[in-house]
């Protein structure tokens, strides 16, 4: 009997796992000893970090999108048929079309989604860049913006934890380039008592905010937005007026996770080293889907996926465990339109970002194109 590997989710994490398995299980796939099936929600794969550049016209939409089939190894049986129920006791996954897929090993890679609907008034009053429709709308709003107060508002939890600072510095450069800085004010809000969750990054940002004239309001957890009055109010009872509101909306996991009783908020309780679902020996969790207290970011998904590939291959070929995930995360940090830095850390090593440079910014721009090699499992 062929071993069935079922991957639920066709984003970065699921795609890297699928392609990596195909490479390492070539013989088994050829001999019919293994099958790999993926259930995705969309026929198109999107390079999500590129959305940050769309509002400023620095990346075209066509650069962000590829057909998922062209990104996936042809040996993966890919279905645009999202899962509606995952039964880990019966080892069965049911889909929108009514199909049921069994498995020997399951990889949950359903990811996260933005939830502006969780804050009253946010969907009507705010802009964001975390999906293509939002990035387009923000691009149009920025083109019409002729000065005023921009509030950049961050909500927890969210993916890509450096994005709030990146959009702030890029917006500042954008307004300066259009000669609108004298007529504008940028106010940055953050849920905890400093400018970023990473303390070294927060410490670096303080003098940068002063140099750029960016104001901040910390301990700001959004309670509501009033689109008519153009105000945003926090749980801590601070109200700010805005002319343009750019939000990093709160995120949740996918409904199928909640509906299947696999985790509150759509996040699956996951063992931090094995990446196995707590209580399962045949269900791996990868990418944003985990409840691990680490960054929800593409690099996290990538490093986790590499670990899952090694362990799945080792279990199938040799019936043994290969290695543990060490919590590694690596993030580029754009510090303007022409400079950047990076930060990396794991469960045992704290982050220590270096000074921004143009070279790192260029490397980030190069990675924006190299991404497609990552997704194919070549980088």
């Amino acid at each position, binding site marked *: 009997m062929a071993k069935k590997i079922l991957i639920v989710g066709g984003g970065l994490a699921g795609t890297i796992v699928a392609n990596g398995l195909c490479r390492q299980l070539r013989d088994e796939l050829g001999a019919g000893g293994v099958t790999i099936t993926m259930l995705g929600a969309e026929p198109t794969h999107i390079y999500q970090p590129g959305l940050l550049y769309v509002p400023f016209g620095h990346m075209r939409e066509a650069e962000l999108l590829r057909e998922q089939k062209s990104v996936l190894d042809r040996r993966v049986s890919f279905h645009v048929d999202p899962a509606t129920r995952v039964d880990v006791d019966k080892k069965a996954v049911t889909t929108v079309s009514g199909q049921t897929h069994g498995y020997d090993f399951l990889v949950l890679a359903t990811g996260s989604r933005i939830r502006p609907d*969780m804050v009253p008034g946010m969907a009507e009053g705010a802009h964001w860049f975390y999906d293509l429709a939002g990035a387009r709308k923000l691009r149009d709003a920025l083109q019409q913006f002729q000065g005023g107060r921009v509030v950049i508002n961050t909500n*927890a*939890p969210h993916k890509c*934890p450096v994005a709030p600072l990146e959009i702030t510095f890029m917006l500042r450069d954008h307004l300066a380039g259009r000669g609108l800085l004298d007529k504008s004010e940028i106010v940055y809000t953050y*849920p*905890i*008592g400093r400018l970023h*969750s*990473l*303390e070294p990054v927060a410490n670096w940002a303080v003098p940068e905010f002063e140099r750029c004239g960016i104001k901040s309001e910390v*301990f700001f*957890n959004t309670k509501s937005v009033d689109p008519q009055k153009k105000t945003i109010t926090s*749980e*801590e009872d601070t109200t700010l007026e805005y002319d343009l509101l750019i939000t990093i909306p*709160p995120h*949740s996991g996918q409904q199928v996770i909640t509906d299947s009783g696999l985790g*509150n*908020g759509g996040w699956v309780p996951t063992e*931090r080293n094995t990446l196995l679902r707590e209580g399962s020996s045949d269900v791996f969790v990868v990418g944003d889907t985990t409840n691990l*207290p*680490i*960054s929800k970011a593409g690099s996290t998904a990538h490093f986790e996926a590499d670990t899952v590939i090694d362990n799945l291959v080792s279990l199938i070929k040799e019936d043994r465990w290969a290695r543990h995930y060490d*919590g590694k*995360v690596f993030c580029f940090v754009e510090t303007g339109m022409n400079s950047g830095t990076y930060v990396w*850390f794991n*469960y*045992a090593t*704290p*982050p220590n970002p270096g000074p921004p440079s143009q070279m790192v910014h260029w490397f980030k721009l190069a990675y924006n194109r190299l991404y497609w090699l990552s997704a194919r499992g070549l980088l």
Partner: protein
Amino acid sequence: MSERHKVDARGAYCPGPLMELIATLRHCAIGDEVEMWSTDTGSATDIPAWVKKARHELVGVSQEGDHWAIIVRKAH
């Protein structure tokens, strides 16, 4: 029936224990408790400060071996 949600944020640098607490409370019912484990010594002061500011309820703070255990009840 109120629940207690455990969050093991030991070794969490980003988003960090306080952001994890805020994110977890978002999906809790009023009256639920979150028990946060953190190895970040700043959490023992940062989290109670925020809990007071956000008008939730601090149930307890204690040092348990290699980590702090901070228990918070969602008040609204």
